[in-house]
Every structure is written in C-alpha cells, then in structure tokens.
C-alpha cells in the first residue's frame, strides 16, 4: 500500500475533549491520510460525532466545549488563535446524519456554498452546480427541475443534495457523520458508491455505527469506545485480525 509513504493531511495528537465537566474524548492520536476513506466505528456515545466535530471546528458552537492537544491540518494548527472557524469549515465539508436542505431551490442549495467562497457570476456557478450534482450522482434525477424546492425529493435524494452542496464549497476533506442512518436500504449502496468515487479527489472521514458498512467503504478504520481510540489501522486488519480484545468483540458483534 502506498499509504505509508504519503504525508498525512491531518495529524491529531493527544486530543482530549470535554463538554463541561465530562470528558468525551481521551488522548486520541492518529493521522488522516489524503485520498483515503478513514472510518470511525463504535457504539453510540463513544465520541465519534464529537471527534469529527472537532476536526471542522463545529464544536466551537458549543460554549461548554473545551479541548487540549493538537490538530494539525497540513501542518497548521486548526485551533490557532486568529484562525476563523468559517475558514476551516470551507476546507473541511460535512454531511450530517439528517439531510437538511435549505429553504431554497435545488440549484440555489448547491450554489450557496460556492457563493460563500466568493463565486458570484451565474456563468461560473452553473458549471459548479452541475459538476457537484454529477459527483453526488443526483444530476440525472434533478436537472429538469433545478429551480424547484428540494421538498419534493426523497430522503436519499436530499442527502445526495447535501453532498453536492458540500462539494460545491470545494473542500479538501469531507466528513460523513452517519450519513445512512436515516436512509432506506436502497439508498445506502448508492451513497457508498459515491463515497468510493469521491475518494480519488477528496480525503474522506466516515463515521458509522454499522460495522459492515465501515468494512465496505473504508481503507483505514478506528474503533472508538467510551472516548478512547482503542485501535486504529488498516480496515482489513481491524476487521480480520484485531489486536485489542474489545475491537474483536465489537467487530464480531459481541460488544455494542
């Protein structure tokens, strides 16, 4: 595998996170490699969502959030005092558990994130919207009614719209936080296929509580258990030859 030679795009060192007095994450250290899918698995309340929200600084919204340790994005401190959270969010996109299209047309939903990074002319926006929708494999279903409200879309289509919207912001890293949780069984393989396709251009971080999904989509996986990163390594190794007993119990279904 080429992964051991490439420079990590993100480096997390000794990350501890508290919400108020309760500690959510304990001494996390790992690297995120570019153009790979890094999955985080673990039972609910293991800190997966908290972890990815540190990576795009969405936790800044929580007044009780406190952290120690370093998160480096291409060598630069993510939490440097003068660095704005909005700048980070432009580089690191996020797809949430629940698809939340804005109250705008399908076109405007996707164009919104391009506008946020300063692209205003419609002759520039059009191609970005099309390309993003194509990457999210939604273009063929919606190109005839781009100006209508996304309310008519199915839940799965809404989620793909949210992916397109995140892509239009031209991020380098894209975080998926349990994106299939609210989708039906037919939509899940489509979303996994999108993730596989995006891998060639983006660095992906994928949070899921479905073990087999993590095994299917990811190259590298980490197992979180009550705030500890129990094991982190190649997905194949995590699922076939786990070093830690707790990982083994989890991937075989005996834990969580």
């Amino acid at each position: 595998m080429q992964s051991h030679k490439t420079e990590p795009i993100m480096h997390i060192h000794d990350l501890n996170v508290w919400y108020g007095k309760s500690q959510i994450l304990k001494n996390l250290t790992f690297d995120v490699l570019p153009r790979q899918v890094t999955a985080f698995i673990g039972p609910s309340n293991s800190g997966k969502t908290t972890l990815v929200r540190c990576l795009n600084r969405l936790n800044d919204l929580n007044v009780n959030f406190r952290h120690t340790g370093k998160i480096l994005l291409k060598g630069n401190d993510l939490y440097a005092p003068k660095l704005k959270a909005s700048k980070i969010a432009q580089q690191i996109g996020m797809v949430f558990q629940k698809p939340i299209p804005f109250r705008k047309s399908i076109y405007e939903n996707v164009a919104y994130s391009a506008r946020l990074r300063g692209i205003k002319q419609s002759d520039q926006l059009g191609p970005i919207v099309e390309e993003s929708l194509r990457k999210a494999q939604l273009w063929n279903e919606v190109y005839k009614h781009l100006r209508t409200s996304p309310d008519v879309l199915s839940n799965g289509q809404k989620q793909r719209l949210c992916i397109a919207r995140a892509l239009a912001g031209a991020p380098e890293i894209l975080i998926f936080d349990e994106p299939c949780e609210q989708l039906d069984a037919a939509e899940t393989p489509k979303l996994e296929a999108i993730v596989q396709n995006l891998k060639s251009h983006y660095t992906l971080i994928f949070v899921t509580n479905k073990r087999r999904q993590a095994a299917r989509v990811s190259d590298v996986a980490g197992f979180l258990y009550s705030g500890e990163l129990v094991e982190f390594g190649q997905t194949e190794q995590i699922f076939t030859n786990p070093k830690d007993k707790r990982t083994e119990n989890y991937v075989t279904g005996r834990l969580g």
Partner: protein
Amino acid sequence: MKRSELIFQSIALITLAVAFILFWNFSKGVSFVENGTLFDATVTDSYSVLQENLNRMIPILLGAILFSVAIAFYLEEYLARTSWKYQIIARQIAILASIPSLLYGILGTYFFVFKTEFGSFFTHALTFVLLVLPITIQSTQRAIRGVDISVREAAYALGAKRRHVIVHHVFPHAFSTIMAGIFIAISRTLAISALIIVVYVWTEHTPQSGDPFHIPGSVIVLLLLSLLSSVLSSFLEAKTNWS
C-alpha cells in the same frame, strides 16, 4: 432558584429600578412639549386627530420593532445563554414583559402625562415603546430559538459566517413567527390605548346627548385596528405551522 440566578434576578431588578428613577428625573427636565392630541379625542369626529397621532407613531413603532428584533438577535445569536450579559438583559426584559399591559397604560398615563404636566407626544411614545418592546423582544427570541439548530450547523459547516447564518437562514426561517409576535404586541397596545381613552373620556367629560357610554370614534378605529392586527397575527402563526 440557584444562588447565581438569585443574584442575576436581583441585579436585573435593581438596574431596572435605577433606570426608572433616572428616567423619571430626566423626563421632568425635558420640555420639548407639544400638547398631546390623543386625549383631545373626545369628540366623535376625531379621525383626523387619530390620523395625526398614528402618522407620528408609525415611525416610532417601526423603530421600536427594528430595535427589538435587533436586541433579540443579539441576545440569541451573539451571547451565550450562560453569560452574565444574557442573564441580566433577558431577565430585565422578562420582568418588563410580565407586567400587565394595563398597568403600563394607566401608570404611563398617570406619571408621564399628568404628573409631569407635559402630555407631550414624547411621553406617549415612551410609554408605548416601554409597553411594546419587552413583548416583541421576547416573541422574537422565541421565534429565533424555534429555528432548528441543525439548520445553523448545516450552514456553519459550509463555512458560513455568523452574519450569513443569521441573514440567510435564521431570519427567513423565523420571519413569520417574528411578525406574528409583533402583530400580537401591536394589537394589545392598541386595545389598551383604546381602553384608557374610554376611561379618560368617561371620567373627565359629562356624557353628551344623554349617552352614558359615550365612545369616541377614535376608540372604535383603534379597536378595529387591534382586531385586524390580531387576525393578521393568527394568519402568520398558521403560515408558520404549515411551512
């Protein structure tokens, strides 16, 4: 009640009292007096008087509403719920909003209009603003809080700045609820004004043409406007529930 809450509540009450006393002294010195026209509304044919008052009140009203919306957004979007600024301002507003509007009307009329002996437009306007502001601030706060956190997060996660989130998402989402709250406040204010005029007219003037319950025309207009306002509010409320 926790100790910190008790402290915040006391500070809120004390600062309000101090503000009232300061204002009281200040208002005695103010003398850009032009005699009030609202209380001349004793004759049935007083639409023009009301018209004049409304014409002057509308800018005040718009200003008060814009101010209250701004305050509400400042409280909800820029301050943390746990910060001392939020705690004190929100408590002051809650105290003011909890006072029945009739009390404002009567006390406002008594202190500002009769005791200061300048029934000026200025004092009318101040009573009115004091009556309307806390209610509109609170209803706007509730409307802002009603916007789902996930909408904000979705926008922040795309790299939106706080002002983008407010202008592009929170405000459009909350708009009809904000307007519903404002119309309710206006409706209540108009109704109270009408009531006070009626009481004033009944106590100060002998009934004309043997009618013991003489009601000035302006009062009827006020009540109709109040009704219209509350109907509008209910429509806006319904719109919020549908969309």
